[in-house]
């Protein structure tokens, strides 16, 4: 398990790390403490042994004299049967007696009384603890200074240190185990609401979009709210979709019902002229229905949030000229004046050519349906804009937003599908452009403008 990939692992890692560091520090401290305690305990033996020896030092025959007390050596040996070394040194540093010439200690004398010094030494390959007592004779004939040096091996100290460490270690380990257990439980408990949330989401019927009602801690409540907002949006989207489907089926049913009725009527007649007239009507209605179906298709495609058209640099002037070329014949036959108002310099934007053509076709078609006699297509720069202007009836300002919704028509004359502007709006959104409806410059009529975010250089 990659710890970074799981909240549990992450929490555990970040909580365990300081715990381990703390544990290591405690161990180190226990080790040093055990060593110091063992040394303190055993240094008392050095202290007592040097004192026992020093008390037996006398001034005899004009020199230092020692009647070595065997008990002092036994004291140093202890239970661990340490190796024992001692030596008596006079104030000139001369070895008076002893079983080893132990080294001197560099330490300073105490300000008063006996000087006691301890240290670890390495002597002839043995690790020893040395104790030194510097004192003077308490004799009325001589106050000669002298030094008693003793040393013993470290077995007893090491054993005591290990024992102390072991008891400390048991405590530290128990504490560590407790901490780890608590940690595991705490992390588990803290992450429990998350599991509840997951179960609640998993247990839901995939078709329900009602908001989650679950008692959660603050951090997760925020997540729940975000989730509920998403669900609300999805509810709205679904409502829209349902209305769209209802509208679409309604729209398709009406012409199909018309075709069916007209065909039925014609079938009762015997005259071929009647049949012909009926067939023409059926033809035109079915053409319209096919167009409607196509428009519905492109609208669904444009509305699909997954759909990302490929945008290429495109000269808007070229686009306008192309649209005029495509529609000029049809408009000319209907005696409509179709014109273009292009810029001298090319104006490039990132766009999908077929979509822009579709948008312009829809707008031209729209204007024609609503009875415009003159339609002008044009391009403006800074910011780059594409506009279609007509001299038709226009749309009152209060209805300009409504007409962008599918199946909403300016008039109920049964001609248009009510999808044209919705499609244009979808195309504008795909280009990141803004669609705006306004009055044309002549005072009446509609001006539709597509404002692109920026021009390409």
């Amino acid at each position, binding site marked *: 398990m990659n710890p970074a990939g799981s909240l549990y692992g992450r929490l555990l890692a970040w909580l365990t790390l300081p715990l381990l560091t703390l544990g290591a520090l405690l161990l180190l401290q226990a080790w040093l403490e055990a060593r110091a305690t063992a040394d303190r305990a055993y240094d008392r033996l050095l202290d007592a042994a040097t004192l026992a020896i020093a008390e037996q030092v006398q001034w005899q025959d004009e020199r230092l004299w020692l009647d*070595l007390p065997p008990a002092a*050596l*036994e004291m140093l*040996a202890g239970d661990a*049967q340490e*190796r*024992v*070394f001692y030596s008596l040194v006079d104030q000139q540093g001369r070895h*008076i*007696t002893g079983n080893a010439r132990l080294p001197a200690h560099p330490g300073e004398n105490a300000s008063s009384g006996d000087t006691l010094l301890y240290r670890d030494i390495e002597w002839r390959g043995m690790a020893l603890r040395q104790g030194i007592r510097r004192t003077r004779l308490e004799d009325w004939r001589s106050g000669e200074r002298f030094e008693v040096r003793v040393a013993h091996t470290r077995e007893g100290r090491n054993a005591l240190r290990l024992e102390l460490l072991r008891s400390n270690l048991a405590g530290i380990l128990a504490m560590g185990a407790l901490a780890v257990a608590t940690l595991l439980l705490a992390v588990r408990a803290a992450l429990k609401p998350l599991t509840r949330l997951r179960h609640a989401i998993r247990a839901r019927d995939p078709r329900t979009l009602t908001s989650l009602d679950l008692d959660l801690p603050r951090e997760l409540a925020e997540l729940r709210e975000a989730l509920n907002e998403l669900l609300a949006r999805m509810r709205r989207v679904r409502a829209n979709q349902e209305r769209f489907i209802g509208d679409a089926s309604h729209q398709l049913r009406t012409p199909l019902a018309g075709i069916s009725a007209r065909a039925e009527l014609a079938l009762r007649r015997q005259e071929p002229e009647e049949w012909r007239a009926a067939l023409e009507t059926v033809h035109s209605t079915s053409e319209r229905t096919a167009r409607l179906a196509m428009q519905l298709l492109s609208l669904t495609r444009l509305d699909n949030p997954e759909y990302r058209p490929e945008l290429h640099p495109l000269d808007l002037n070229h686009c306008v000229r192309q649209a005029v070329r495509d529609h000029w014949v049809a408009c000319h036959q209907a005696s409509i004046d179709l014109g273009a108002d292009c810029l001298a310099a090319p104006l490039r934007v990132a766009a999908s050519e077929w979509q822009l053509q579709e948008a312009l076709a829809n707008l031209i078609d729209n204007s024609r349906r609503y009875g415009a006699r003159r339609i002008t297509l044009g391009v403006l720069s800074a910011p780059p804009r594409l506009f279609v202007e007509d001299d038709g009836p226009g749309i009152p300002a209060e209805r300009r937003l409504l007409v962008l919704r599918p199946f909403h028509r300016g008039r109920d004359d049964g001609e248009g599908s009510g999808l044209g502007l919705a499609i244009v709006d979808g195309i504008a959104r795909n280009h990141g452009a803004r669609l705006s409806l306004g009055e044309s410059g002549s005072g009446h009529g509609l001006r539709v403008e597509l404002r692109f975010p920026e021009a390409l250089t």
Partner: protein
Amino acid sequence: MKPPLARLALLGALCLLPTLACAEQLLRLPADTDAGAARPLVIHAALDLPQARPLLEAFHRRHPGIDLTYRNLTTLELHERFLAHPDEVDVLISSAMPWQFALANEGHARPLDSPRLEAWPAWARWRDELVAFTFEPIVMVIHRELAAIAKPPRNHAELLALLNTHRQALAGRVASYDPVRSGAGYAYAMEESRLSPRYWDLVAALGGVEAELVETTGAMLDGLKEGRFLIGYNLLGSYAAPIVAAAPDLEMIIPDDYALVSQRLAFVPRRAPNPEDAGLFMDFLISMEGQRTLAEETSLGAIHPALTGPGTATELRERLGDALRPPGLGPSLLAGLDRLKRQALLARWQREFRRSLADAERDALD
């Protein structure tokens, strides 16, 4: 410390001590050629051959592949030779306990790795390096003629009383170790002075009867056999026992108030050339088999707690109880080697020894 002449005399005396087997100082038990490549093992000891031979032969029977060289030396020779060549010997055995202890204390001994050591009495081993494997009480030997003068003493108190009451009759007829010239004598003096302050009265009493001060157990035994001495004080029991057994005039007495015990200490030097076979030998010394050989075929005294009967420490303890005072393997042995301590003790000893003499002179002057 000592003039060379005195040392030579001491060496000579120590060499004479094993009158029992001074003829041969070296014993070789060659390896059985069938048992593969010979494994040499060199043992240096202060232990006479008649005592050592049964032990060595028993060991060799068990391990015939070992090419064993045994060299009997005096304690002094042994010590000095080891210090000069610490890598020539595999096992070092000596009755000079302080010296053996000092060597081990300085790290000359190798720790033994024998499961038998766990069962060995704690008072007879030190740090698993040094092992005591014999139990030799220090005894008094008396000549039957003493019965004409007084009842034979059973302990130190009776000896003191006897010496004080029959000073004239016993003059010159008591022998003991000279602590100045004999290492063993010094060691006993040191032990006894620690055990009881009345020891000094005993020394004074010995001085009062003008006791002969000799250097070896052998010299005392010779004098006793010849009838020159009536009382020998502080003889090594293991040497006295076979002589006394052979001489109907002599009687050996282990004092029942306190009895010193001497022990042979053995260790394997750190730089031993054949430490594994040396370990085998050490293991044999403390094994049931080795200890039984000690009890039955020598007078050295076996320590093994499972062994009972004649020649064992168990039997001596049953008979004498707390009176037995083995010196204890510990650093207090080192005190005996302290130069100033030795000077102080010997000075005191000589002073006490001459005390009654000085008293007599003062009385004469008065």
